[in-house]
């Protein structure tokens, strides 16, 4: 055979480049924390922080004036708040996917990205939590959503999908935080042991909990990590499924379709991976982490973006086919209206960003080109925001009664709030980059070839 063999399938691509030893890895990862923050970091933080202030002032304005400052009205009673909520929750999913599901699938390349992605998850979920919190109208009675005994003898309605959201998203946030923190403990101990000042010793010391790296502790630790991964994997599926239930349990054409749960999950992973790629490209460039976050990692991520993008495309297609196949005229109209109605512009932005552009990742050239993947990952994020917009708004603006049809457009408050949520996200993210290790130090060491003890004696217990 004359086939050119481009790679040797019996060899695996190395996960870490640059020939670092254990100490070298610690030095490399801890460097941004120990060194003085670069200028761009200060500028970026100032910029994000001002956006965060914009968010806070918009929230203050909203509470002061009432929900009327948003563009919501009949018939579109759900607008930016839910769109942004689903968008941010979706972004968050990639973190859990990378840490939990890839861990269960033994995808060792995850070790270079998981810390980073988990942090992103937590900050994205915080951004998401803002929106249901502020859209309830009377914010000060938001505690009604939780089953707390009260003198009104009122309890939440557990048959409402919105309440499932409360439980799903708060559980998701809690478990992600625990998972992230458990992963951080050994690395915090590294920071504690390297700290040069007393305040750092104390702060990192408290959070490292006195970790000594003893194997008796590692044993329980590894089991806990595995169990958390096994719990987080179905959790992440359930969370976006439940978010999809918000729409799908209703009878609104275009919302009520049975493929929604897995379709939303695929979309969430899709958008989250795109966000991770965007951030990773910047971080590895700016902090010099190219030996750990290698091109191989980025390529793996891009392949997943391609795969999930295609799944989302499959779901779009199935919805259209079934709308026709159902023979139900409302169902069919909802989808024709999406593609050719007043919001056709949003629909076509969504389709091209989510289905067409990621197809470029079929080419290895594109998959391994930094500028190309940077642009595509941002396009995907835009597309996924529009997906939520299309789903929410098109169906509501054209419901069963033509007399009540309407057209929704956001107000400046809507737009500024959305913009401000990026401020919250990036402020938290920049602080994370400066004060915590952006790569899981102990996990990366664990997948290095030197980490395997060569046991020359007979294998025990196998």
């Amino acid at each position, binding site marked *: 055979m004359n086939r050119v063999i481009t790679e040797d399938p019996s060899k695996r691509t190395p996960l870490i480049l640059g020939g670092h030893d254990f100490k070298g890895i610690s030095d490399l990862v801890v460097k941004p924390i120990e060194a003085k923050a670069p200028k761009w970091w200060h500028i970026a933080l100032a910029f994000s922080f001002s956006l965060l202030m914009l968010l806070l002032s918009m929230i203050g304005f909203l509470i002061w004036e009432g929900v009327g400052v948003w563009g919501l009205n009949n018939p579109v009673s759900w607008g930016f708040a839910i769109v942004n909520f689903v968008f941010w929750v979706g972004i968050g999913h990639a973190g859990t996917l990378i840490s939990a599901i890839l861990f269960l699938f033994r995808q060792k390349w995850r070790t270079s990205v998981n810390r980073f992605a988990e942090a992103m998850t937590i900050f994205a979920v915080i951004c998401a939590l803002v929106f249901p919190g502020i859209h309830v109208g009377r914010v000060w009675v938001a505690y009604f959503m939780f089953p707390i005994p009260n003198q009104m003898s009122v309890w939440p309605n557990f048959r409402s999908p919105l309440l499932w959201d409360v439980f799903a998203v708060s559980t998701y946030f809690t478990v992600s935080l625990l998972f992230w923190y458990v992963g951080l403990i050994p690395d915090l101990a590294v920071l504690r042991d390297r700290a040069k000042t007393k305040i750092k010793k104390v702060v990192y010391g408290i959070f490292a909990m006195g970790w000594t790296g003893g194997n008796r502790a590692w044993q329980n630790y590894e089991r806990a990590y595995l169990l958390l991964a096994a719990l987080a994997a179905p959790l992440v599926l359930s969370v976006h*499924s439940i978010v999809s239930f918000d729409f799908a349990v209703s009878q609104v054409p275009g919302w009520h379709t049975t493929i929604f*749960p897995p379709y939303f999950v695929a979309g969430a992973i899709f958008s989250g991976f795109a966000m991770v790629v965007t951030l990773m490209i910047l971080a590895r460039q700016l902090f010099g982490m190219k030996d750990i976050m290698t091109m191989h990692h980025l390529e793996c991520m891009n392949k997943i973006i391609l795969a999930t993008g295609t799944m989302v495309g499959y779901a779009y297609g*199935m919805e259209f086919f079934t709308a026709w196949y159902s023979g139900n005229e409302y169902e069919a109209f909802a989808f024709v209206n999406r593609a050719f109605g007043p919001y056709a512009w949003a629909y076509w932005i969504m389709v091209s960003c989510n289905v067409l552009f990621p197809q470029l990742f079929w080419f290895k050239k594109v998959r391994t080109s930094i500028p190309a993947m940077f642009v595509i990952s941002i396009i995907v994020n835009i597309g996924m925001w529009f997906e939520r917009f299309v789903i929410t708004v098109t169906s509501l603006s054209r419901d069963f009664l033509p007399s009540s049809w309407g057209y929704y457009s956001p107000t400046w408050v809507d737009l500024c709030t959305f913009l401000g949520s990026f401020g919250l996200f990036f402020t938290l993210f920049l602080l994370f980059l400066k004060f915590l290790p952006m790569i899981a130090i102990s996990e990366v060491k664990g997948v290095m070839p030197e980490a395997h003890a060569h046991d020359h004696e007979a294998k025990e217990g196998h």
Partner: protein
Amino acid sequence: MAEVNKLNGFLEKRFPKIALVVGIIGICGAIILGREDSTQFFYSYLVSYLFFLTISLGALFFVIIQHLTRAGWSVGLRRIPEHLMANLSLMAVLFIPILLGLHDLYHWSDTAEVLHDALLLKKAPFLNVPFFIVRAVLYFASWIWLARFFFKNSTDQDKSGDKGLTLSMQKVSAVAILIYALTQTFSAIDWIMSLTPHWFSTMIGVYIFAGGILTSICTISLIALLLRRFGYLRETINVEHYHDLGKLIFGFVIFWAYIGFSQYFLIWYANIPEETEWYLHHISGNWNTFAIFIIVFHFVVPFFLFASRHAKRNLKLHTGVVLLLITMHFFELYWVVMPNFSHHGIHVSSLDFLCFLGIFGIYTSVLFFRMGKFSLYPLKDPRLKESQDFINH
């Protein structure tokens, strides 16, 4: 490694023949008895047919996904799903009786009836006999092409050891998965969803896929265990691989339950007549008890049994769970298909057994006949060593 890589003795020579005889007896018996009640015959036949089809299709998916993800751990056991998927050509032949029974099975194929049914009239451009046949040909053509491609490249590698074959399979696997997704979905719509032609669900393709892939992995495990009993593949497929298969089975048990529940739940909650119809049929009479039975033994029991690491690695327990799940897959398909025929409750017919026996015999016979001709594992796959060294941490 001194592993025997060829079947010999009973499994190679006598077993396929015995299976063939069993199969022919089953089919002949079914045909003779089925003349009394052709509709019952075709429904019973469809259930058994779908059971084996989903196993082969699941195996095809399993092989494709192993190449797509460049998996190393599974190389040693990959030949088993390769054989299972190669049976898709057989499934194409076995599809002919269903074409003969179109009028008994599919209400929409009756053109006179369709004229009086506004909904079916709307669907007629899709649900009509010629287009149905064209689609079926298309599905089988693409499946057989894919199965042959992966089978041939893999077995060729046994002789040549050409690493390029692995690369070309990896390349094709990406496109293969797209073709697979579309054909699998539409075949589920055609052959299962259109049994109740008014009903619709966007999830049906994924639902049938979930059950199929789960059962397929169980079958892989079961065949490996069978071969192990006869002394084959004791080293190439060791307890670590069974552990890993167990994890996949565990995962897909959850996935199946997730998809099944989501579909039911959304329809239950929205409570729209055109959708609830399907579930109402499937829980009327003792079908309801049957549904609960499926939930318990297709999900709850295997979930708790396979949650522990110990159970996945204990080969006796492993065999038990795998057998249970395979049986439950048959019952699940029975529950999906049969209420369209016996509306008010379970009606057990001897045809159910005979049809199953018939297809089972022929399927197994062809499977083991082909197995005898090739190495039992990919002898020269570049990742074979990785597979053998693999340990679950």
